[in-house]
C-alpha cells in the first residue's frame, strides 16, 4: 500500500504542478525572457498610455459661464499696485505687506486670522514610519528669534454648513515681494473678491497667504499641522514659556481700522476638499501663455487624477493655455529614444495597414516626449521629495496641486497684463466652481498613475505589468536554486529499500531541512546590518556641532565596524575552507534565500512607492540573477567564467555607486538641516535606497566570501 501511494504522485502530476516544474527546470531561459520583457514593457508604457477622462460625474467642469470680469481684474491691479508701492518703501516691509493684505481681505468681509509659526529643522527619525505625523514630539527644535507669519482669510459659504473647504495658497516672501508673487497674490485676491459675491458657493474658501521666508513648504506644513492638531491650553502655555509671546498681533492691530474682524485664535473651516497652490512666473515662455502642473507629493504620492483632469480640461478648452508637466530635458534629444520611437511608429503603421482597427502607433515625437515625461514622473516619485508646497497637503489626505502660470512676454504692457490676469482668474474660478460641485472627497479616479503628458496617463494596472514581468524571474530562480540544492544532496537519490538506508535517510533528513535556516540566518544578519547602517544617521545627527564631512566619516566607520560586532553577537560562523561540494550547495541555498528576500522587499516597495521599486528592480534583478561566488569562478580559468566575473563586478559597481551617492546626498542634507522635503520622504527614500544597498552588499559579501 505504501508503494502504491508512493507511485501515485509519480504517475501524473496535475497540470499546474507540471507547469511549475517546467518553469523551474528552464529557469535560466525564463528569467532572461522575463527581464527583457519587463524592460521592453517599461519602454512601451508611453504607447500604452490612455487619454485622461473626467471620471466623477458630479464635477461637470466648465458647464457654467465664468463670472470673472474686468472688474475683478481691476481689483487685482489695485492690490498689485499697492504691494509694489509698499515694496519700494524701505522700512518695515515684512509686517506692512501682511497688514495690507489683511486689510484688503477684511474689506471683502472675510474672516481673517494670523498664524505665527516657527521654522523647524527637519529631523530624521527611524521609528516614525508607520505612525501618523506627530504633533508634539518635535516641538523642541523651534528657534524663538525667527518666526514666519501666515495670513489666513476665510469666506463662509452662503450655501454651506462650514464643514468643507477649498484652499487657495499663494506663497510669497514677505520681506521682498517679487513681481510674480505680487501677480499671484493679485489673481488670488481677485478670485477671492469674486467669491465673496457669488451665491453658488457650497464650500468655504480659505485663502492662505503663506510666508515663504523659510521655504514655501515649511510655511504651508506648519499651518496644516496647526489646523489638524489643535494645541490645547497646557501645551500653548508651555510654548509661551519657551518663546515669550511677541506682540505681533498687537502690532498688527494698531492703526487697523478693521480691528474687530481680526481674530486672535486659529480659524478653521472643516475638512479640506482640495488645495490649489497658485504661482506666477513671467517672461520665460516663447510661444504662448502656459500652465505648469506639479503634482508629486512626498513618497511619490499623487493627488487624484480627476483634479489634474479638471485643471487640464479648463486650461486647454476654456482658457487656451498650454499645459505642461515636468519633463526630463536630456531625454528629448536622446538618439536611441528617437530611433525607438520611429521603430514603434512604423510598427504602428504596419499594424494599421493590416487591420485598421489596431491603432496603437503614435508619432515618434510624441513617443519621445511621453518617454521624457514618464521618466521625470518616475524620477520625482522615486525621489520622494515633494515638488512644491502642495506636498504638505497630501500627508493629510488632501488632494492638492501647484499651478504655475507663466506668461509669454514680460508683463509690462497693461492690456497684456489684464488679459493674463483675466485668464488666470477665470481658470481658478472654474476649478473652484467645479470642485464646489463635488459631493464627496475625490475618490472616483486613480491615485496610482504615471503621467506621460498632461492629458495622458498610465494607470496602475498597466505599469504593474512591467514591474511584475521584471520581478517574476526572482521567485522562479529562487525555487529552482532551492530544488538544485536539494538535488546535489548526496543521500537524496539513494534507494530506500533497506532499513539501513532508511535509517541513513532519516539521519540526513534533519540537517537537510535545516540547511536553509542557516542561509536564512546569514541573510538576516546582513539585512540587520543594513538596517543598522540606515538607522545610524539618526544617532549621528544627535551629536552636536558636527560638520557634514566628519559625520559622514563617522557614519562610514561605524557601519563598517557594526558588521563584525553583530556577527559576534549573533554567533554566526564565518568559516572558510570547506569541501567544495557542500560549499557549492550552501552557496546555492544562500543565493536562493537572498533572491527571495529581494523579491519580498521589491514587492513591498512596489506597494509603497512604485517608482522606487521599479528603479530598484531594474538595478537589482540582474544583479541578483548574475551573482556567483567569485572564488569558484576564479579557480576555473575559462574565458566564459572570466566574462561572468567581469560582468558581476561591473554590475556590482553600477549598482553600488548610485545608491551610495544617494545616501550620501541624503545624509548631507539631513545633517546640514537644509532639507526642504519633509523627513518622512527622506526617511522613506533613505530607507528604500539603503535596503537596496544592503541587498547589494549582501550579494557582494556572499560573493567575495565564498
Amino acid at each position, binding site marked *: 500500500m505504501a508503494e502504491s501511494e508512493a507511485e501515485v504522485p509519480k504517475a501524473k502530476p496535475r497540470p499546474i504542478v507540471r507547469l511549475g516544474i517546467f518553469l523551474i527546470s528552464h529557469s535560466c531561459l525564463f528569467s532572461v525572457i522575463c527581464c527583457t520583457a519587463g524592460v521592453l514593457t517599461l519602454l512601451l508604457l508611453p504607447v500604452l498610455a490612455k487619454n485622461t477622462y473626467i471620471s466623477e460625474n458630479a464635477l461637470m467642469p466648465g458647464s457654467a459661464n465664468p463670472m470673472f470680469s474686468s472688474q475683478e481684474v481691476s481689483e487685482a491691479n489695485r492690490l498689485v499696485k499697492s504691494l509694489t508701492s509698499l515694496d519700494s518703501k524701505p522700512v518695515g516691509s515684512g509686517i506692512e505687506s501682511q497688514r495690507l493684505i489683511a486689510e484688503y481681505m477684511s474689506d471683502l468681509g472675510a474672516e481673517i486670522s494670523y498664524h505665527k509659526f516657527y521654522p523647524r529643522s527637519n529631523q530624521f527619525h527611524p521609528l516614525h514610519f508607520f505612525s501618523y505625523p506627530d504633533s508634539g514630539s518635535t516641538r523642541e527644535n523651534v528657534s524663538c528669534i525667527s518666526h514666519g507669519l501666515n495670513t489666513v482669510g476665510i469666506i463662509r459659504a452662503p450655501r454651506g454648513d462650514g464643514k468643507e473647504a477649498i484652499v487657495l495658497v499663494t506663497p510669497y516672501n514677505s520681506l521682498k515681494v517679487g513681481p510674480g508673487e505680487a501677480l499671484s497674490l493679485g489673481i488670488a485676491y481677485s478670485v477671492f473678491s469674486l467669491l465673496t459675491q457669488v451665491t453658488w458657493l457650497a464650500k468655504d474658501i480659505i485663502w492662505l497667504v503663506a510666508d515663504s521666508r523659510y521655504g514655501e513648504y515649511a510655511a504651508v506644513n506648519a499651518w496644516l499641522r496647526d489646523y489638524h492638531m489643535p494645541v490645547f491650553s497646557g501645551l500653548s502655555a508651555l510654548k509661551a514659556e519657551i518663546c515669550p509671546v511677541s506682540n505681533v498681533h498687537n502690532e498688527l492691530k494698531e492703526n487697523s481700522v478693521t480691528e474687530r474682524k481680526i481674530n486672535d485664535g486659529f480659524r478653521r473651516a472643516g475638512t479640506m476638499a482640495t488645495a490649489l497652490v497658485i504661482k506666477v512666473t513671467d517672461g520665460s515662455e516663447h510661444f504662448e501663455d502656459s500652465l505648469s502642473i506639479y503634482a508629486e507629493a512626498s513618497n511619490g504620492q499623487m493627488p487624484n487624477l480627476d483634479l489634474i483632469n479638471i485643471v487640464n480640461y479648463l486650461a486647454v478648452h476654456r482658457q487656451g493655455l498650454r499645459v505642461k508637466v515636468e519633463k526630463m530635458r536630456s531625454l528629448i534629444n536622446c538618439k536611441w529614444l528617437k530611433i525607438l520611437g520611429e521603430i514603434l511608429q512604423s510598427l504602428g503603421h504596419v499594424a494599421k495597414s493590416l487591420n485598421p482597427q489596431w491603432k496603437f502607433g503614435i508619432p515618434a515625437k510624441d513617443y519621445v516626449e511621453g518617454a521624457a515625461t514618464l521618466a521625470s514622473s518616475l524620477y520625482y516619485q522615486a525621489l520622494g521629495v515633494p515638488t512644491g508646497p502642495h506636498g504638505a497637503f497630501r500627508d493629510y489626505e488632501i488632494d492638492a496641486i501647484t499651478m504655475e502660470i507663466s506668461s509669454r512676454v514680460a508683463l509690462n504692457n497693461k492690456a497684456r497684463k489684464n488679459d493674463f490676469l483675466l485668464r488666470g482668474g477665470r481658470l481658478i474660478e472654474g476649478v473652484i466652481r467645479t470642485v464646489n460641485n463635488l459631493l464627496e472627497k475625490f475618490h472616483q479616479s486613480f491615485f496610482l498613475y504615471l503621467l506621460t503628458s498632461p492629458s495622458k496617463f498610465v494607470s496602475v494596472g498597466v505599469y504593474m505589468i512591467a514591474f511584475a514581468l521584471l520581478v517574476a524571474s526572482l521567485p522562479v530562480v529562487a525555487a529552482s536554486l532551492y530544488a538544485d540544492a536539494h538535488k546535489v544532496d548526496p543521500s537524496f537519490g539513494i534507494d530506500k529499500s533497506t532499513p539501513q538506508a532508511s535509517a541513513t535517510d532519516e539521519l540526513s533528513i534533519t540537517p537537510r531541512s535545516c540547511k536553509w535556516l542557516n542561509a536564512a540566518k546569514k541573510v538576516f544578519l546582513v539585512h540587520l546590518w543594513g538596517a543598522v547602517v540606515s538607522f545610524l544617521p539618526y544617532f549621528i545627527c544627535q551629536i552636536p556641532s558636527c560638520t557634514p564631512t566628519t559625520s559622514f566619516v563617522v557614519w562610514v566607520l561605524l557601519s563598517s565596524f557594526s558588521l563584525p560586532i553583530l556577527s559576534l553577537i549573533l554567533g554566526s560562523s564565518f568559516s572558510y575552507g570547506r569541501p567544495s561540494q557542500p560549499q557549492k550547495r550552501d552557496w546555492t541555498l544562500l543565493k536562493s*534565500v537572498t533572491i527571495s528576500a529581494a523579491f*519580498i522587499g521589491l514587492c513591498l516597495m512596489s506597494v509603497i512607492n512604485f517608482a522606487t521599486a521599479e528603479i530598484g528592480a531594474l538595478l537589482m534583478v540582474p544583479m541578483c540573477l548574475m551573482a556567483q561566488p567569485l572564488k569558484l569562478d576564479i579557480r576555473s580559468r575559462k574565458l566564459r567564467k572570466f566574462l561572468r566575473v567581469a560582468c558581476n563586478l561591473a554590475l556590482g559597481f553600477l549598482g553600488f555607486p548610485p545608491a551610495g551617492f544617494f545616501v550620501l546626498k541624503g545624509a548631507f542634507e539631513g545633517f546640514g538641516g537644509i532639507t526642504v522635503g519633509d523627513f518622512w520622504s527622506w526617511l522613506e527614500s533613505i530607507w528604500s535606497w539603503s535596503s537596496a544597498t544592503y541587498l547589494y552588499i549582501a550579494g557582494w559579501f556572499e560573493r567575495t566570501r565564498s
Partner: protein
Amino acid sequence: MEPKEQSKEKKEKLWFWNWVIASVIFRLVLIYFPKNLNLASRPEVSTPLTSLRRLAEGYWLKQLSMSPYAGSMYHGSPLLLSLLGPLTVKRIEGQPDHLLCSLVFVIADIVNAMLIRATGQNLQMEYTRSLKLLDHVKLSEKPEIIPSGDIAALVYLWNPFTIVACVGLSTSPIENLAIILSLYGACKRQAPLAAFGWVIATHLSLYPAILIIPMILLLGYGTDTPPRKLFLQRRNVEVGDNPPNDRCCEREEVVHRSEVPHVFSWRPVIHFFCWTSLWSVYVLVLCGISVKQYGGLWELFKRTYGFMLTVQDLSPNIGVLWYFFAEVFDFFRNFFLIVFHGNILFMMLPLAIRLKHRPCFLAFVYIAISSMLKSYPSVGDSALYLGLLGLFVNELADMQFSFFLFCGYVGVSLLSPVMHNLWIWRGTGNANFYFATAMAYACLQIILVVESVSAMLNHDRKLRKPLTELQDGKN
C-alpha cells in the same frame, strides 16, 4: 567521554538560558518605546477582545459602579478585569504607562515558554521510548534528535509575533498561558491542572473549548506515539520470529508492556471531568459575584460569548470574517455565522479519528484551525501555534514548502501594516488592499496545517516501512 558529553550538555543548557534572558531584555527594551512603535493600536495586535485599552476602559466603568460591558467597549472576562484592572490604573512616575501590565505579560510569556519546554521534554521522552519499542534503536540513539522542547520554547520566545503581542499590550499571552497550561497538565496526566487550564482558557476565549477532545485522548492514551497498529505489527513479527523457548516469555512481557499506554484508561478522564465541573462551577460563581449588579450571568454571556459568536465588531483585523460580514446581506447573516462556526466543528471529528494516536499534534492542528477561523484573530494566536509547531521538529523534519511558508509569513507580516497604512493614512488604497493580505495570511495558514498533517502522516508511514519489510521478508 562522559564528562565531555556532560560539559556539552551544560553548554547547551547555558546557551538556552542565554537566549531566554536575551529575549526578556529585548522585550523590556521594546516596552520603553511604546509611543514610537504604537503597537497597541495596530489591528493585527489588539482585537476588541484582547486590547488592554478596552480593558482599562471596562475597569474605569466598573470603578464608576457602572457595568463594565456598558457601551460595547469591553468584551472580556470579569475575572481578567479584576486581575489586570488595578494594574492599568497604577502609574509609576517617569515610567511608561501600563508598565506593570507589560511586566505581567512578559512573565506570562516566560512561563509559557517554560511550560512548552516541559511539554516538549515529555513528548521527546515518549518519542524515544516508542522508537525503542519499535526497535528503531539506531534511530533513537542517534545524536541528531533535536531537543524539541528547547527549540519550541525558543521559537515561542523569539517569534516576532509573540514579541509584538507581548509588547503591544494585548491580553493574548494570558490566554495562551491558559491553553498551554491545560496541554501541559494533560501531558503530565494531572487531571486537576488540565481541567483548570481548560476551564480558564474556555472562559477567556471560548474557542479552546474544542481542545476537550485532545485533552481526553491525552489523559486516556498518554502523549504522542506512533500508531497503535505498528505495535501490534511489531508484536506479530516477534511472535512469529521467536521459537518457543524461555526468552519468549520475556518478549511477551515486553510486548505487553509496550501496549500498556495504548489501552484507554478511563480513570484520569473521569477525574478530568469531575475537576472540570468543579472548576467551572467555581469560575461561574466568581463571575456571578462580580457581575451581580450588572445584569447577572446571562448579560455576561451575551456580552462576551455572544459578541464573539455573532461577530458584532466589524473593524478590520487579520482574519477574514470582518470583511465578509460587512458585505453580506443581513438576512443571510445568521446562516453564515452558523456555517463559519460549524466549519471548525466539522473538521474536529475527522481529524480526531485520523490523529488519535497523536493528541498533542491534534491540539496543535485544532488551535491552528480555530485561530484561522475565529472571529477576532490576532498575531498572538499565530504565536501560540507556531510555538507548538516547534514541538514536532523531529517528526516534521521533512515537511514540504517550509521555506515557502517562511517567506510567506515574513512577506505577509510586513505587507499587512503597509496595506493598512495605504488604506487608513494615505487614502490611496482601500479595504480590499488590506483584505487581500488577510486572505493571503489565511491561505498560508491552510497550507501550513495541510502540510504539517501530511508530513506527520508520512512520518508514521516511514516508521511502518521497516516493519512491513521485515514481515514481508519472513513471509
